[in-house]
């Protein structure tokens, strides 16, 4: 498969989850595991452009797929606009949910470049944050959406 633009090959057990491959074999520990039961969204990555919960997908199902994780967003010069927006708008406290929030938010903005607050809240149904109360996450995504458009 391709992970963050680089071709990778790995031998995995048939039952290996995508998140296990990413974290344990490829060392990409930015993708978190919160619940391991497909509820919390800490593990969200993109597979072929769409956001998925990597704790609920087998690595083998992603054979030959293009996977994008939080580590693949920034280039060597700058953060991705959505990352910058979370930083600027204090969209995180402990940061545990943040990689999943950002990956989910980018999928939203790719489908809906100018979302309303209600659409953002609706989209975040599968991303749980136990710290922020969501207000600043919504503001961050608004700002990130504007920055992604102007880029």
């Amino acid at each position, binding site marked *: 498969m391709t992970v963050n633009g680089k071709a990778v090959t790995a031998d995995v057990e048939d039952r290996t989850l995508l998140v296990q491959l990413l974290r344990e074999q490829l060392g990409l520990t930015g993708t978190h595991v919160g619940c391991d039961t*497909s509820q919390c969204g800490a593990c*969200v990555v993109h597979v072929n452009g769409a956001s998925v*919960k990597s704790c*609920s997908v087998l690595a*083998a199902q992603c054979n030959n797929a293009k996977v994008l994780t939080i580590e693949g967003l920034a280039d060597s010069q700058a953060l991705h606009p959505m990352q910058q927006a979370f930083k600027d708008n204090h969209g995180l406290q402990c940061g545990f949910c943040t990689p999943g929030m950002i990956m989910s938010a980018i999928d939203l903005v790719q489908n809906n470049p100018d979302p309303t607050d209600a659409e953002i809240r609706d989209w975040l*149904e*599968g991303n749980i944050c136990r710290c922020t109360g969501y207000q600043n996450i919504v503001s961050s995504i608004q700002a990130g959406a504007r920055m992604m458009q102007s880029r």
Partner: protein
Amino acid sequence: MYDFQYTKVQSIDDAVHHMQQDEEAVLLAGGMTLLPALKQRLAQPTQLLDLSGIENFSSISVDGDAIRIAALTTHAGVAGSPLVQVHIPALAALANSIGDPQVRNRGTLGGSIANADPAADYPAALVALDATVITTKQTIAAEDFFVDLFETVLESDEIITAVSFPKPRRAAYAKFANPASRYAVVGVFVAESDAGCRVAVTGAQGSVFRWQEAEAALSSEFDAKSIESLTLPTDDMNEDLHATADYRAHLVVVMACQAVREITG
């Protein structure tokens, strides 16, 4: 998860062949129900047969007066389909109300109806729209497809290939969603077509059912007023930490009225 063998099948015939060879093999569609169940070690299949490599298994097409949706179409695929949005907008809206975006990106129509969760959304749409389920062995009316709690007519080596939904004249779905998962505590799909009015209820009992008293009342006058004072027996209603049987029986009426009002405006 217990260990299993992962096999990506190339065709429907290939999948059937594997299922006949190995009775402990199970199909893997979106995995949104199956993989969490395996993680909890609720099942120990020998093999998972991944259907995602089968060609044309997630297409949506017009089929006479019906819309035919192939079994591997994701919830996001149904919600975003211009064909479904134009001809059966209530079905697109239902698909868009399932779980969350990541569940909708993976979970499939076939997986949902094969699983027959009593709180799943699709069964209400299939039964109210008088849809037909097409499998490798039969073509069967949705009403006869769902048998009971997590039980359908499917045999162990049978695969759902598509569902054909007749276009209704007008339809709407209203659900009282579980605030965490979005599964239906109670969901009611109301559809009106030349053949009459059908009201299908999910979440309330072990399996989806038609609320015939409401159908009759709406057929004589299609207005929420016709059904708002009806009541349902509570004997067969589900009871769990989300809702008592009495509350569920009440919710059926409220959700049915909401769906009718959405149609009548």
